[in-house]
């Protein structure tokens, strides 16, 4: 049986009496950009943390590359972690290390390489994320918000993952920087044949980049193509996609999300 690259079945997450997810299902296929949308407090971050193995769900199956990570030991999970890249919302760069060292750190932990070659490869990843070469020796505190996002992306790409998780990739960016970042994600997705899973609030980002969208409503997920989800009758989804900002987008005509994959 061929599994999708990421599969979540019947996920249940609960904190005390608060039920966050109740039987959430999602499926992500290779070479697509999958957007996760939901109101504040609907558990988008909890979902991401569950998928990354940062917290164990109460029930459910999470398969990455066909292997259920909820039943893995820490040692087995280590191997899986080398296969995906994560870019956190605030960047989560290690503040004591330069950008280049940040990108090198996953390589040091997972790959046996000559230090000189490793730092050159890290430079390639930094350039690929659209950062100027002189940014490599800067510390995270010296970077602007847009550069932090790019540095975090460079680190996420350090181990040549097939699967890329982005948590709010364009939050805190002005619309122009956000648009450029979307372009970058699409470019890298195409060039490196990545599967991208992003959590986002940004309607522009969704319309520009996503093939399919999953909306977390009522503790489960409505998954559909971009065209399909816009016409979903659920009130929250209607409000989200047909609000003031979204209407302008829709009036301008629904753009076909770029050609992904090959």
């Amino acid at each position: 049986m061929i599994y999708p690259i990421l599969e979540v079945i019947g996920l249940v997450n609960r904190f005390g009496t608060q039920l966050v997810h109740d039987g959430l299902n999602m499926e992500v296929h290779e070479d697509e950009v999958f957007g996760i949308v939901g109101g504040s407090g609907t558990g988008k971050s909890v979902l991401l943390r569950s998928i990354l193995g940062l917290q164990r769900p109460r029930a459910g199956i999470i398969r990455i590359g066909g292997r259920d990570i909820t039943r893995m030991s820490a040692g087995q999970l280590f191997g899986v972690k080398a296969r995906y890249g994560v870019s956190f919302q605030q960047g989560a760069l290690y503040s004591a290390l330069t950008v280049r060292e940040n990108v090198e750190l996953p390589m040091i932990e997972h790959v046996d390489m000559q230090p000189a070659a490793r730092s050159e490869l890290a430079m390639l990843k930094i350039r690929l994320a659209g950062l100027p070469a002189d940014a490599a020796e800067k510390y995270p505190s010296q970077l602007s918000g847009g550069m932090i996002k790019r540095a975090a992306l460079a680190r996420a790409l350090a181990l040549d993952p097939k699967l890329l998780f982005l948590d709010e990739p364009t939050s805190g960016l002005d619309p122009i920087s956000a648009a450029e970042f979307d372009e970058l994600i699409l470019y890298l997705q195409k060039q490196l044949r990545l599967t991208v899973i992003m959590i986002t609030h940004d309607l522009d980002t969704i319309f520009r980049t996503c093939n399919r969208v999953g909306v977390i409503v009522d503790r489960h997920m409505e998954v559909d193509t971009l065209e399909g989800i816009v016409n979903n009758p659920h009130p929250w989804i209607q409000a989200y996609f047909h609000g003031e900002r979204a209407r302008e987008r829709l009036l301008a005509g629904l753009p076909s999300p770029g050609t992904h994959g090959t």
Partner: protein
Amino acid sequence: MKIATARLQALDLSGAWRLHEFIKQAHAAGVEVAFEGSPPDQLRLVDQTLRGESPPCSQLTRPIPLNPIEELEAPALRSLEFLGRHSVLYARDLVRDLAFLGRMSVTAARGLTSTRRLRPISIARHVYDTGITAIPIVSLIAFLISVIIAYMSAQQLRNFGAVVFVVDLVTIGVLRELGVLLTSIIVAGRSGSAFAAEIGSMKLNEEVDALYATGVDPFEVLVLPRILGLVIALPLLTIIADIIGLAGGALLCRFLLDMPLTQYITRAQDAITATTFWVGVMKAPVFATLIAMAGCYRGMQVRDSSRELGRLTTLAVVQAIFLVIFADALFAILFLELRI
């Protein structure tokens, strides 16, 4: 030279970069490289990126600052509810304490199996931060404390005509108890708080999560080096404090009590033995472990807000000092029973 690509199934970016470097070296050595079949796409990507032609970008701009969210004050609780809630909380805390201790032991045991996992460079940094940089303040305090003891005891003992016993009081007091105890308290204030604050702010920045997500054990890279660093640094600081304390005592006896230096030394040699010194120094690694664990543990508990960081840093220092004094009391009883 020819490179055949017909049977190439997959090539990731790192592989393409290696190939790119290889071809570059070949060119530099004057070897012609040709592809049999089409050159892989990834090679073109590497080439473009290194020449700065891709990705398409970029005008980078400043971020929009996000407003911090105020925490809400919990409503006043009735006394019974308060009692119940706190009993549950303390019980849960106790379980967490034990879990931390267990995690720590497992990491330490694993760390001892290989030097790479032990992170010697990191340990050295912590020895420097917690030990070397603390020498001036530790010396000063040891000096002042020995002066205070000598001065006060001289005043009292003079009434009995037993001024010479000032030497006993200073040397035994400093070597057995005060040297190590005061050093530990200073270090708890300096380094216990630093540990909690460093690790705590890493937690706030999601840096600890990032370590977990990359498959790096934060206990191994953050907690263990700090504990081992302090276990090395504190005994050395204690020895320095002992030396300075004895010297301070000697100085005071010489100038205030007009006791010749030779008499001080003879008297000191009568009063103390090798065990007096070791009793003090051997407590240092134990105190170091307590201080470092309190600091790291509280640091790891920080989440969500910077207020939490302040609260737990304070707690780390208070608990470290409490644990040190409590352990010292246990040591005192133990040594009494052992007649050391």
